[in-house]
């Protein structure tokens, strides 16, 4: 399969701009070959890189206010759109293509989207946090560009045809007079091959969702035919002329440093090009991958032993004992008083382990560093920030760095994509040739930025009617590093090994009083008012509330992992809500609704319950035997990030009380993310999130010994295999065409763990407060039943 020729996708303007930005046409051609669109197939080639179909784009990067940075109409009338939000396997590429086609009233097939290349596309920062749908589908950025372009084209057509704008109709890229369709002009005639030369118009009117013909439809994803037939180009498939292969040699233990590197140990090995050592970063470069693997395995490096690690089995106690950065999310200052003399107090502690992204593919990148210039093909979510962080790692000006996104396997957050990009860049710099690096499974798993472990203490005060009158939440979580952003390459292991420091929480106690309300981490439970001063942003009714968090320094790198902190907190909140309901013998759905105020959160709870034919009664389920297999159901809900997607799930499980095994039989997921851009894409995200959540709830935990991480492959970190028992998944999509677009990639994963734990309680009367819900923990909880 020949790669696409990216130059064909660029107009002379674009090429001139590329040259002005320091990338010569020849080197652009040489280095990127094609590689603009990310995949190539016979069928797709024509629509993805039709010669002459683009593009008058400006290449002016950052947060561009210029329409030409986002949308270009080719001389043939085809549309090229530029986005800084990247496809990660979640369907965004297709949904964004739909968005542009819809706003411009052109057929889906005539829109070509170029994504995430710092030399070509608008700087949209990092593709993360379920923020792409909110960012590009509301009245801003790509959606606004589409609306601005349509209005600009209508204005020009109006002048040209002498017909008022409101008397014009648009269809398939042709504008005509409603009264006389023979009076018409095409987009190509109006602006084809030329710039708009206009700014985004904040007042440009989006198309009314009732008129949608492309957006809102279950259009199949553009990449899937190429993926299913082995033709899709992942970052792992990027091949550059003259490319060599690198392999890194990571430390054997956390905190180990290089004492010496014996280059003679690999002297004369076939294909070996160079041994590279820079502070504690060690790697080899060879002509072929297998040669690099052999050399890296044989290279003799002497390491210091490292300082040792806190014990795994008492780690949650360790967290409580550490110096911390204390923060209040809410503090009504009356919680202690309410807890002092209530009718009843309920309290519980929840524990969550470190988990890892454990991406299916190990991380891979290709870099070509020549003097002060670097091109990096990377699967990072942080394409634009990486321009600067790579420059820092290499010690070159950031102007000389170009980062080109290529998809890898699902990342679910800050996996190894950033660190391997630095690996490839460092090794390429050392040899002056393009170098490809793909990590080993162990190097990926032992050193990635883990999702946070948590200890969460919960207490509530109840009044005589069993209603909650005060909620007290206190948590401890370990942090080290995070995304590198544009100035902290030490936040991932490679940057650290070459001498940059990771971010650590700066100790702070006592916590300052909160000054505004935000619930980005979902540390605040859904059932409180979320009032800070006069501002109340919560979704519940409980007025007395205190949420105090303690960030402590982690022994391992940490970073965002799908629903970071939000899953951990939601497991604790939603498990606890169930415990409270059980303590007053209330039905879990009814009891939630009693404390909720937000109508949309109420609606997802009701929808999930209704679809699941929820039986109104308290847990545990009456009549279940205390041996053998028993069934139960549980519910949980969240407003993700406090403002970014409503979701509720009902889980139905069977628990084998003899083995402790949990078999999840059914999920019903109700979701409201505002307007639905692609219902099948949304369902795929909810289903995938549910199973990802199941895997994390039942199986996944990072382990370590006194010096090193021991969960380093699929035997020692075993997730949900394809052949495993998987539940049926029903999704209930609540479409709100007129509401603000919200995220949907991380809602379902957030609510699953608590729903399963609640269902296990319903089935057995045993409460498990620690993830993962392993058979041993189930059996221990069963044994502890009254």
């Amino acid at each position, binding site marked *: 399969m020949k790669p696409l020729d990216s130059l064909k996708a660029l107009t002379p303007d674009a090429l001139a701009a590329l040259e002005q930005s320091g990338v010569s046409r020849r080197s652009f051609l040489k280095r990127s070959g094609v590689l603009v669109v990310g995949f190539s197939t016979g069928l797709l080639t024509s629509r993805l890189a039709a010669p002459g179909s683009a593009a008058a784009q400006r290449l002016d990067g950052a947060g561009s206010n210029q329409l030409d940075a986002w949308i270009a109409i080719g001389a043939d009338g085809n549309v090229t759109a530029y986005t800084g939000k990247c496809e990660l396997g979640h369907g965004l590429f297709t949904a964004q293509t739909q968005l542009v086609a819809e706003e411009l009233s052109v057929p889906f097939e005539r829109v070509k989207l170029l994504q995430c290349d710092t030399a070509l596309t608008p700087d949209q920062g990092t593709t993360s946090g379920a923020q792409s749908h909110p960012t590009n589908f509301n009245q801003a950025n790509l959606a606004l560009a589409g609306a601005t372009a349509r209005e600009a084209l209508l204005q020009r057509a109006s002048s040209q045809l002498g017909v008022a704008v409101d008397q014009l109709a648009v269809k398939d890229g042709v504008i005509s007079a409603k009264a006389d369709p023979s009076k018409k002009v095409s987009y190509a005639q109006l602006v084809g091959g030329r710039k708009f030369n206009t700014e985004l118009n904040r007042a440009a009117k989006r198309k009314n969702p009732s008129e949608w013909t492309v957006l809102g439809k279950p259009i199949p994803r553009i990449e899937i035919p190429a993926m299913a*037939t082995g033709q899709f180009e992942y970052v792992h498939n990027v091949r550059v002329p003259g490319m060599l292969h690198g392999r890194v040699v990571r430390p054997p233990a956390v905190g180990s440093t290089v004492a010496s590197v014996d280059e003679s140990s690999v002297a004369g090995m076939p294909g070996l090009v160079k041994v590279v050592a820079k502070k504690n970063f060690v790697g080899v470069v060879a002509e072929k991958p297998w040669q690099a693997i052999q050399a890296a395995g044989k290279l003799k490096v002497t390491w210091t032993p490292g300082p040792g690690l806190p014990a795994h089995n008492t780690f949650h106690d360790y967290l409580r004992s550490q110096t911390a950065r204390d923060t209040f999310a809410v503090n009504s200052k009356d919680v202690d008083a309410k807890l002092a003399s209530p009718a009843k107090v309920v309290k519980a502690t929840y524990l969550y382990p470190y988990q890892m992204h454990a991406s299916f593919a190990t991380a891979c990148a290709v870099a070509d560093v020549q003097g002060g210039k670097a091109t990096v093909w990377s699967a990072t979510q942080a394409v634009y920030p990486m321009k600067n962080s790579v420059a820092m790692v290499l010690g070159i000006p950031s102007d000389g760095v170009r980062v080109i996104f290529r*998809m890898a396997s*699902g990342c679910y957050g800050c996996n190894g994509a950033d660190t391997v990009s630095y690996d490839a860049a460092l090794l390429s710099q050392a040899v002056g040739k393009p170098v490809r690096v793909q990590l080993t499974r162990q190097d990926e798993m032992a050193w990635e930025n883990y999702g946070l472990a948590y200890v969460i203490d919960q207490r509530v005060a109840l009044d005589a009617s069993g209603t909650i009158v005060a909620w007290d939440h206190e948590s401890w979580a370990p942090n080290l590093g995070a995304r590198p952003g544009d100035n902290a390459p030490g936040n991932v292991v490679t940057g650290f090994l070459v001498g940059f420091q990771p971010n650590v929480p700066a100790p702070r106690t006592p916590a300052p009083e909160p000054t505004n309300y935000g619930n980005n981490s979902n540390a605040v439970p859904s059932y409180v008012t979320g009032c800070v001063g006069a501002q109340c942003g919560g979704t519940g009714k409980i007025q007395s509330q205190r949420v105090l968090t303690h960030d402590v320094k982690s022994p391992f790198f940490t970073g965002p992992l799908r629903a970071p902190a939000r899953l951990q907190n939601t497991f604790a909140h939603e498990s606890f809500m169930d415990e409270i309901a059980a303590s007053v013998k209330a039905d879990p759905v009814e009891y939630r609704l009693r404390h909720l105020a937000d109508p949309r959160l109420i609606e997802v709870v009701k929808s999930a319950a209704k679809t699941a034919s929820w039986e109104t009664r308290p847990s545990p389920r009456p009549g279940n035997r205390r041996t053998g297999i028993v069934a139960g159901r549980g519910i949980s809900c969240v407003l993700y990030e406090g403002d970014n997607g409503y979701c509720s799930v009902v889980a139905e499980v069977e628990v084998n009380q003899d083995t402790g095994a949990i078999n999840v039989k059914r999920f019903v997921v109700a979701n409201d993310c505002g307007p639905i851009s692609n219902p099948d894409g949304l369902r795929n995200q909810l289903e995938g999130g549910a199973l990802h959540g199941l895997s994390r709830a039942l199986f996944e935990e990072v382990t370590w010994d006194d010096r090193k991480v021991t969960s380093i492959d*699929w035997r020692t970190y075993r997730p949900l295999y394809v052949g495993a028992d998987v539940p049926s998944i029903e999704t209930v999509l609540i479409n709100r065409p007129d509401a603000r677009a919200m995220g949907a990639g991380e809602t379902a994963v957030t609510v699953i763990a608590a729903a399963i734990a609640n269902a296990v309680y319903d089935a057995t009367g045993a409460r498990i407060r620690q993830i993962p819900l392993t058979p041993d923990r189930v059996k221990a909880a069963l044994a502890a039943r009254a």
Partner: protein
Amino acid sequence: MANFNLRVNGRSHTVDVDPATPLLYVLSDDLELRGPKFGCGLGQCGSCTVIADGQAIRSCMTPVSNVAGSTITTLEGLGTVEKPHPIQKAFIDEQAMQCGFCVNGVIMTAKAFLDKNPKATEPQVRQALSGVLCRCGAHTRMLRAIKAYAQGVKA
């Protein structure tokens, strides 16, 4: 280094490599195929699966010297975007993937199994896929696609 003859997707290739080189590296780097993928290098995930003489094998663990002379089929050898193999079409129809990185292992394992066991029950198919991983959670869609394909084979 030594020369090995491989018949891959109906074409003959001669490669000059270290005999211990796993087949996967020959396929991905010497032949630049995109179907078989490196996921773990340990035979634990299935992403490198190819069909050699009718048998699904893990190419990351198979030295090229072991398969010299074998007839090897990779994902791209089954069908194309324009003319996908029925099992590939079933995955496309069901939109049975997210990142798509695992589908090589799922499709190749399921196809090799169903070729030999066309009347397999769903539990048997799942057993065959017990060593194949997906991290995006497309499990239910993939199983639906395989079922649709298997029914087509039986029909």
